[in-house]
């Protein structure tokens, strides 16, 4: 498989390799992981490249170990990541909750496959809830970015490292088995974000300064209230500044398709085919799943007649769209449980049934 990075030149590469290469270009100093289909190529690539670059690579004994090793590494102020898939990301939920409480910039690459349980290795979007609502305890959010092409796997991996450090909060790149296994031409480029100064909090040895401690334990109830207020002030800033989405033909749309990730590609084509049939359709693609583009969806709900979310799960994002729309117009679901996305023709015919 093509894995060489030729700067400023397009190369045909798999989503998984694109993510791994982008992480390296972003300055990821440590990788910890345990293999699982459909993202094993990330660890495979890292196992060679990180050692070649004299950076850290550990094949962890479990996903629980991998997430906690990542927590340890980022607490020293370096960029570090882990990657996994669905049933194994489930094992990392405790660590992710801790990392939000510890305010640590963990980067997790989550390449979704079928679930629940062991499920299967086919593409899926069934971990929308897992990523955006979380399976860890307590009040927290993960920053969640959803690529739809292999090029976006590169762009948003860079962004995940940046946002994680900028806000000292875990960031998740939520890809799926299709994107992970798909090859497309991509262009790699230098990490486009400013480096974040971590010296005010990182555990770098207490020589010449007071010792620091990073922990999430707050024995006094009042202190925890203060912490949570502060944490949620941060989330407010993230919600105000970091929402990203793509929107096509929504201005005059009677019906807006809402879709994220690889599925949104087929939804986009379905939207065009509906237009050709004289149905005024538009497409809305959230790029950040947290922060979710609530505000924009709410605005659009005042103009359009109907939303239809297109998802490869049993209907997860549809709930967030309904909350954003808040009853202003109907929100329907076109879905498939697991596997490659429904074809544009299938989406079109299901939407025609809804009209």
């Amino acid at each position, binding site marked *: 498989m093509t894995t060489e990075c030729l700067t400023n030149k397009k190369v045909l590469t798999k989503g998984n390799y694109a993510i791994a290469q982008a992480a390296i270009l972003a300055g990821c100093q440590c990788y910890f992981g345990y293999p699982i289909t459909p993202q094993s190529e990330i660890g495979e690539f890292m196992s060679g490249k990180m050692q070649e670059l004299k950076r850290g690579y550990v094949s962890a004994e479990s996903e629980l170990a991998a997430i906690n090793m990542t927590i340890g590494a980022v607490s020293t102020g370096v960029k570090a990541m882990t990657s996994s898939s669905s049933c194994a990301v489930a094992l990392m939920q405790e660590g992710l909750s801790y990392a939000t409480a510890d305010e640590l910039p963990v980067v997790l690459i989550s390449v979704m496959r079928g679930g629940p349980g062991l499920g299967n*290795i086919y593409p899926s979007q069934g971990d929308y809830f897992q990523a955006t609502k979380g399976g860890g305890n307590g009040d927290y959010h993960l920053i969640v970015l959803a690529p739809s092409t292999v090029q976006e796997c590169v762009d948003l991996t860079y962004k995940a490292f940046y946002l994680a450090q900028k806000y000292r909060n875990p960031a998740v790149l939520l890809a799926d088995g299709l994107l992970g296994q*798909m090859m497309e031409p991509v262009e790699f480029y230098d990490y486009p974000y400013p480096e974040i100064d971590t010296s005010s909090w990182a555990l770098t040895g207490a020589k010449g300064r007071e010792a620091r401690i990073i922990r999430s334990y707050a024995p006094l109830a009042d202190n925890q209230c203060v912490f949570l207020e502060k944490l949620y002030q941060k989330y407010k800033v993230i919600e105000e500044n970091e929402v990203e989405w793509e929107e096509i033909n929504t201005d005059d749309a009677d019906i807006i398709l809402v879709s994220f990730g690889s599925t949104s*590609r087929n939804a*986009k084509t379905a939207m065009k085919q509906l237009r050709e049939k004289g149905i005024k359709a538009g497409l809305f693609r959230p790029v950040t799943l947290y922060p979710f583009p609530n505000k924009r969806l709410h605005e659009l709900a005042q103009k359009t007649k109907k939303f239809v979310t297109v998802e490869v799960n049993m209907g997860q994002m549809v709930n967030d769209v309904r909350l954003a729309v808040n009853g202003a117009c109907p929100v329907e679901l076109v879905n498939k449980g697991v596997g490659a996305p429904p074809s544009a023709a299938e989406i079109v015919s299901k939407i025609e049934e809804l009209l």
Partner: protein
Amino acid sequence: MEKNFIIAGFGGQGVLLAGEVLANAFMLAGKHVTWYPSYGAEMRGGTVNCEVVMSDEEVSEVNKSDADFVIALNQASFDKFLSKIKKGGWMIANSTLAREIKTRTDINYLFAPITKLAEDVGNIKMANILALGLLVKASRLVNLETLNQALDTVIPPHRKNLLPLNIKALKIGYEYDLLTV
């Protein structure tokens, strides 16, 4: 213009690699392209396939319901994908491993003893690349020179000794229908 290709056969026949070479060729020709494999409980001897979508614009969709071109390197692939070919599309089949039966009358067929021709080239493993030669001829969507470049891109440095044989297989495939006339 957008065209899609399914390459299918036994696991081990190199169908994923053939798709990767084809996708690289389209990229080198300045097209938009997406490659994706069937994957699951695949194993050597089982069936495997990949799809390549080439477009002048952004690739519209994946998991398409039909295909413009199918390369079937064995009978199971022929049977599985025959019905998926668009009207006027092409079935390029390996007659060494699939029967020459033309049940559909609205598509083009190109039967060639791909496995046997590869053996004649000197390596049965060249069947996948030889089939690409046939595809280039039938589709007229990319030229042989670009395919040669794509082979050079895909074949890793430590396997470069196999490049001449691959280029030869490609050429034999490309010239096949001329041979039979």
